[in-house]
């Protein structure tokens, strides 16, 4: 008896170890059905139903539905919105395989455009949509949405990644000023802050992508857009001298433990958004280098954007003022008239300006006037995009194969973290980056 007693318990316990979590496939948030049916004659898409899938939920979804409503009012089509949840690939994959994709999908990474194009899951954009792209975007964006010689996607929503957020009171206490060049940032701003006894930077080293963002800004600025494009496609190796320059500049922060809150060891244990908390809630550091979405993490710290929470554009580390964007690409998955029309609307000045009036949206469309934005911050950000013109680039790590540019503990994330741990070995870091990149790009 004694021997047998534990076994059922043991088996039960073993079974209990395994647990699963289903990614909630929430019922599609219904966009309000088209109501204005009386002016049918003027509306070319009366009776057409379009399904659009994107990752947004909550406020972002509500804001997007406003844009869809404007489209419905204009064309008479009925648009339903389906939220894909965080993992867009996991949502779309089965629907593509099942032969029932949404009409329009908004992909969080341009890399997926290439992937789905290879699977023949995308429809080329119509001439009208391409005309909108030519008019409103620089050629770089057209190429970004292209695969195998066809234009499939257009960037409709941008995240601005070339920012440094700072805490006004820390700057006031130290008498520090925002910098416009990298040398001033290191030599004056950061030094002044450090001398006055506050850590200049809260780095989020545990979240590898924040380090790749930092690298991309320094690299775009110091090596220029052409080299940036080449490195993105791995046409030049990571052992290139331009990478050396960029890493050496980063080492000006990484190499000084008093420049980072907690030194490099502390920085490597801090993830995003803890670093934002360290600056604005705990007030232990003065600056955090990350994108516009930091605003969403200010939360309980009570720091108001534009008051205590200020931004400076990422300083020039070379000849180019860097503007690195992340963002979402709209693609057509079913060849219907409505789908092309919706993407055309999203890529147009008209659609962009409807969206721009909603909070938390930034348009990559250069013809969307900054006056449409509800807040000073986004106006300022939009201005930097417009003035950077041809030099705006997409987040490099998101363009790389995810084994290199998007996996925790692997590839670029890991190598930059190791570089933060040991910033004196620039050459070694470059060689390891190159080895990982070669492996990932080969596939």
């Amino acid at each position, binding site marked *: *008896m*004694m*021997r*047998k*007693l*534990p*076994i059922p*318990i*043991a088996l039960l*316990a*073993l079974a209990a*170890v395994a*647990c699963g979590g289903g990614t909630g496939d929430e019922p599609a948030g219904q966009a309000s059905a088209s109501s204005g049916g009386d002016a049918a004659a003027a509306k070319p898409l009366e009776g057409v139903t379009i399904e659009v899938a994107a990752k947004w939920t909550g406020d972002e979804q509500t804001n997007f539905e406003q844009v869809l409503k404007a489209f419905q009012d204009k064309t008479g089509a009925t648009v339903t919105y389906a939220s894909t949840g965080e993992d867009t690939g996991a949502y779309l994959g089965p629907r593509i395989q099942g032969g029932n994709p949404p009409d329009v999908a908004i992909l969080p990474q341009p890399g997926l455009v290439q992937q789905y194009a290879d699977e023949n899951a995308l429809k080329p954009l119509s001439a009208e949509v391409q005309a909108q792209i030519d008019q409103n975007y620089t050629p770089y964006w057209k190429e970004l949405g292209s695969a195998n010689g066809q234009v499939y996607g257009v960037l409709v929503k941008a995240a601005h990644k070339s920012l440094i957020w700072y805490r006004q009171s820390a700057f*006031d*206490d*130290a*008498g*520090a000023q925002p910098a416009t060049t990298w040398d001033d940032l290191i030599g004056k701003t950061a*030094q*002044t802050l*450090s*001398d*006055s*006894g*506050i850590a200049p930077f809260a780095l989020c*080293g*545990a*979240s*590898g992508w924040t380090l790749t963002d930092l690298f991309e800004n320094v690299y775009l600025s110091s090596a220029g857009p052409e080299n940036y494009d080449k490195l993105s496609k791995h046409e030049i190796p990571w052992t290139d001298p331009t990478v050396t320059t960029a890493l050496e500049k980063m080492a000006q922060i990484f190499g000084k433990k*008093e420049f980072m809150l*907690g030194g490099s*060891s*502390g920085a*490597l*244990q*801090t*993830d995003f958004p803890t670093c934002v908390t360290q600056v604005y809630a705990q007030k232990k550091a003065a600056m955090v280098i990350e994108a516009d979405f930091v605003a969403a993490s200010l939360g309980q710290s009570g720091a108001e954007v534009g008051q205590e929470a200020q931004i400076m554009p990422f300083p020039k580390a070379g000849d180019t003022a860097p503007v690195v964007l992340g963002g979402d690409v709209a693609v057509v998955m079913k060849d219907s008239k409505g789908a092309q029309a919706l993407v055309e609307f999203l890529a147009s000045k008209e659609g962009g300006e409807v969206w721009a009036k909603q909070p938390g949206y930034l348009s990559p469309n250069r013809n969307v006037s900054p006056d449409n934005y509800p807040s000073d911050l986004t106006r300022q950000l939009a201005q930097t995009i417009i003035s950077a013109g041809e030099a705006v680039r997409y987040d490099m790590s998101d363009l790389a*194969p*995810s*084994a290199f540019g*998007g*996996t*925790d*503990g*692997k590839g670029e*994330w*890991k190598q930059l*973290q190791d570089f*933060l*741990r040991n910033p004196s070995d620039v050459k070694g870091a470059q060689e390891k980056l190159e080895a990982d990149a070669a492996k990932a790009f080969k*596939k």
Partner: protein
Amino acid sequence: MTERLDGPQASGGGETSAAGASPGRTDPPEKTPTESTATESTATEPTPAGTTPSEKPRTGRVRARLGPSPTLAVLFLLPALLLLGVWMVYPVIYSIFRSLYDASGERFVGLGNYASIFTDSATLTTIRNNIIWVVVAPLVVTVLGLIFAVLTERIRWATAFKLVLFMPMAVSLLAAGVIFRLVYEQDPDKGVANAVLTTVHDTFSSSQGYPGARPRDNDQAPAVAQEDGTVTLRRPAELGQTVLIPLVGLPPDSVKDATPAKPAAATPGDGIGGTVWLDVVRGGGGTVNQVDAQEKGLEGVTVEAVSGGQVKATTETAADGTFRFTGLPAGSYTVRLPQSNFAAPFNGLTWLGPTLITPAIIGAYIWVWAGFAMVLIAAGLSAVPRDALEAARIDGATEWQVFRRITVPLLSPVLLVVFVTMIINVLKVFDLVFIIAPGSVQPNANVIALEMWRVSFGGGNNQGLGSALAIFLLVLVVPFMIFNIRRFRRDDR
């Protein structure tokens, strides 16, 4: 008909047996003999023999047909077999098949994926970590479980105590991971582990001075920080001179209440004077390397006068930051502030750093599973025959001997089950590592199961290598599974 009394008993139904027993009597109750036979035959014997009750069923043939017929058995087993086939056998076979192909699943690579498991340094780290886990965690869990079980056996509130220890099992591993991520936080204000360590440490030695203070980091600064943290004046001081040692790196607010700094008064011919102060003004401004009115002196800083490598005199600064050496022999002196002035306070251990991460996560694992082991072992312990222990005690064995020579051997089957179960469990460990290790140290803490997920779904997108890792893990687990199953079967006999 009397023999038929036995028949219904085989079917086991109480009511049927009552009905079966009645036909011998003159007045049958509700059921006629034929009815009872019919119910009985459908339940036990589908053969026509059952319809004509006689002595024959009493022979061995009944025993052979005691279980259900083979077709029925297959029918009953079918759902289980189907589920096992769909959810276990097919995936395993497909994984083996998939592991022979590359990331895209189109090119056959043979054993290439398995080769890369043993050549890639990242996966080798995961194997090393898994070995550490398997060696340490099951042993510690079992031993702790045994200790808890034996110690709680005889106390009054044993159940309550066991309940508390068993509680972590009720927490999901993911939640346990979140808890321990906080426990191991570096900042002692947040992390319990470091809060305990620093409290204990500070009880014995507390840090004083000005951690973080340093000279300005440029060529104009009169003082410079050495490798070891000592702050030295660049130019040697002559007798009769006064020197300035401006320091920065502290928030001006931290010395708000200190006395304003003053330049040292002129010194007689056999001395050296000077000032150590915080050369920072709140909000900026002030003259760099000059004592300004708002700037505060640093009190209690140890200052040394060094000549020819030897410390000739030591003094401390006054409230306004001034110090003075007197009665020095002729010569020039290097004035320095030893490192002890700036010693950083003890901040606990870097639990989540690359070195301690695996032991730290194992600690969390033990917290979760020790209670489980204790409950199993305690159950076993309650079944240990008391007389064996009593006999040993009467024979004069000490408590330790009783424990070592009687209790443990009698418990060994349970201990073995716990131990092997833990090994299987530990080989699959995933969630704790995933949650506790920060992204930057995850390569150092990585284990096979986590690597498998990372490589196939968590960004790596290489399900070929992922399948190979899964099969590798399966191969590691299988021997222990077989061992456990064989034990269970032996116990059943």
